[in-house]
């Protein structure tokens, strides 16, 4: 069975600082990997996805993530955080025709002015 772990429940960074949110997955084959963002009281929005090919993927809002098969990780990064990035971030893993995706428990990002 597939699983996703987001080790950090809550992260606080200063505005303008760099950000890295960790995601580790467990899956027997090559996974599809996703990052979503959720602002308070809203639905989730897809930030980026990895299916195959280049292991560094670019997403919306200046985010990127790198797939590292040897570490079973798909960490999300942003070089300079803006106050509007404060939100809940979810990592998810899926696979083609292999059932539903599995979501991590989320990481809450707080941005200090």
């Amino acid at each position: 069975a597939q699983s996703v772990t987001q080790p950090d429940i809550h992260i606080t960074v200063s505005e303008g600082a760099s950000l890295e949110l960790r995601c580790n997955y467990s899956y027997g084959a090559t996974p599809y990997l996703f990052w979503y963002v959720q602002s308070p009281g809203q639905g989730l929005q897809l930030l980026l996805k990895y299916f195959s090919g280049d292991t560094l993927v670019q997403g919306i809002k200046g985010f990127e993530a790198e797939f590292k098969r040897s570490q079973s990780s798909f960490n999300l990064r942003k070089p300079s955080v803006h106050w509007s990035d404060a939100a809940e971030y979810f990592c998810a893993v899926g696979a083609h025709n292999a059932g539903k995706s599995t979501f991590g428990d989320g990481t809450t990002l707080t941005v200090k002015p």
Partner: protein
Amino acid sequence: SQTIHQWPATLVQPVGSPLSLECTVEGTSNPNLYWYRQAAGRGLQLLFYSVGIGQISSEVPQNLSASRPQDRQFILSSKKLLLSDSGFYLCAWSAGQGYEQYFGPGTRLTVT
């Protein structure tokens, strides 16, 4: 382009009353559809998913049920609400199993 709608946005219901939340998708055919619940400060709990009309998979035993009467319509129901049914309910669709999901705006349900 594809759009997903959920209504109502907010709902306050007494314990023991029935529930019906509706989700519709526009701009795509034969989507996979999902219902999630999010308790305050918690992650997503998958409640039901559907790969086609009349095909519903339940993830957890509970007081809720789901139906898919039309290709792009997904309904979450309960005959008698419990206090523990309170939460934020999210509908989502995907183009296939394992693919990225697109979420609706959610329904905030408070059972009193």
